[in-house]
């Protein structure tokens, strides 16, 4: 069969349905420029590979095992949950499912328990994405008889030999993941994409907060919005700041305070507007903005 002389990249792009996926990602996730950039690269590669195959050129499916590192609350788990969807739409994985596990799901409690357990999880994840949260717990250097090492070996073997069948995503805090990769060099080299999740800026956190509220049918009053912007800046200076997670916790507390305020003023009738609106007082009552601990 003669090779077609040329292929139409634009037409292939339109036909693949990748565009809407990337747009949706841009729309729904705030910030995270490096992550979006990498996903764009992967999408481009998969598309070009498909075209190469059409022209009869050799195209080896790329390795898509990934590691997500970053501070608490930077969206690692959220993006991983999206990843199955994205890779499925890009046509890289066969089924749109994500198996999310931690050490307990992989490592057994006695000799001979670990291998079947790890293999069972791997089998469940085949065709989709296996997400290992806080992967560094797999390796416990202080205990040389720890079964984690066995799980790691099986993982590595399957990651290598069954590249077409599953995508493994490891996630964890940057410094500990570095130490984990340092002591398991095989892992580092088998993972093609090391993606670092940057901390959010104050503006991005504000946008995230508004989205969280909108998703739960709440909104800020103008004064509350201004107070929350101040809250974020103050909270970022404090210890144990966990990016989007801190924002979510703050909003959860604000909702509690709002419920109390509505409850105490229950003499009058409430409108839907009342039930939706977070007032400045709910934000200002926070310890972070200097209010006494309530």
């Amino acid at each position, binding site marked *: 069969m003669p090779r077609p002389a040329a292929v139409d990249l634009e037409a292939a792009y339109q036909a693949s349905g990748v565009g809407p996926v990337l747009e949706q990602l841009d729309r729904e996730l705030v910030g995270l420029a490096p992550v979006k950039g990498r996903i764009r690269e992967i999408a481009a590669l998969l598309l070009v590979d498909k075209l190469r195959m059409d022209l009869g050129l050799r195209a080896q499916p790329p390795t898509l095992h990934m590691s997500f590192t970053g501070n608490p609350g930077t969206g690692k788990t959220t993006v991983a949950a999206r990843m199955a969807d994205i890779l499925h739409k890009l046509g890289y994985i*066969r*089924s749109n*499912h994500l198996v999310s596990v931690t050490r307990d799901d992989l490592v057994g409690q006695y000799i001979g328990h670990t291998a*079947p357990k790890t293999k*069972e999880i*791997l*089998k*469940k*994840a*085949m*065709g*989709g994405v296996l997400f290992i949260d806080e992967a560094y717990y797999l390796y416990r250097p202080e205990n040389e008889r720890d079964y984690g090492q066995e799980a790691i070996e099986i993982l590595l073997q399957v990651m290598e030999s*069954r590249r*077409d*069948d*599953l995508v493994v995503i490891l996630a964890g805090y940057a410094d500990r993941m570095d130490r984990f990769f340092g002591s398991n060099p095989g892992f580092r080299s088998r993972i093609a994409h090391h993606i670092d999740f940057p901390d959010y800026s104050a503006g991005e956190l504000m946008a995230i907060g508004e989205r969280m509220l909108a998703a739960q049918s709440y909104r800020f009053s103008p004064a509350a919005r201004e107070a929350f912007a101040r809250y974020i800046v103050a909270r970022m200076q404090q210890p144990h700041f966990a990016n989007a997670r801190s924002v979510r916790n703050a909003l959860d507390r604000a909702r509690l305070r709002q419920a109390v305020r509505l409850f105490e003023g229950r003499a009058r009738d409430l409108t839907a507007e009342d039930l939706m609106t977070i007032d400045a007082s709910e934000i200002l009552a926070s310890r972070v903005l200097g209010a006494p601990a309530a």
Partner: protein
Amino acid sequence: MRLTQGTFSFLPDLTDAQIGAQVAYCLRNGWAVNLEFADDPHPRNTYWEMWGQPMFDLKDPAAVMYELAACRKVHGGRAYIRLSAFDATAGWESLRLSFITDRPAEEPGFGLERQEAGGRNIRYTARSYAANKPVGERY
């Protein structure tokens, strides 16, 4: 003599791609896929050994093919391997599909024994030639 037990047994052996497609069909229906092997092919031998555990909650046939490859490495060519799909929904709770994926290179078949009983009655027994040898030397 070719053993004809289970679905597809009068067809040529399924290729891996065809097995995978059957497994995909089973998984789409929510059935749990199991692998079993046996070296005694007698039709009334319902107790086949299980390879690993029944595989629940799978999403993709690749997992079954992975186990099938592992099973073949140990038993391939020296035993029958069959794949069965179990439907756990209430009212069924039984196998919905079962077929042989691998068979020994040579299948000696069955001999028919006649036992003469009282009153010129004849009792018949089917005996697998392979099962005359001890376990481990049958194929």
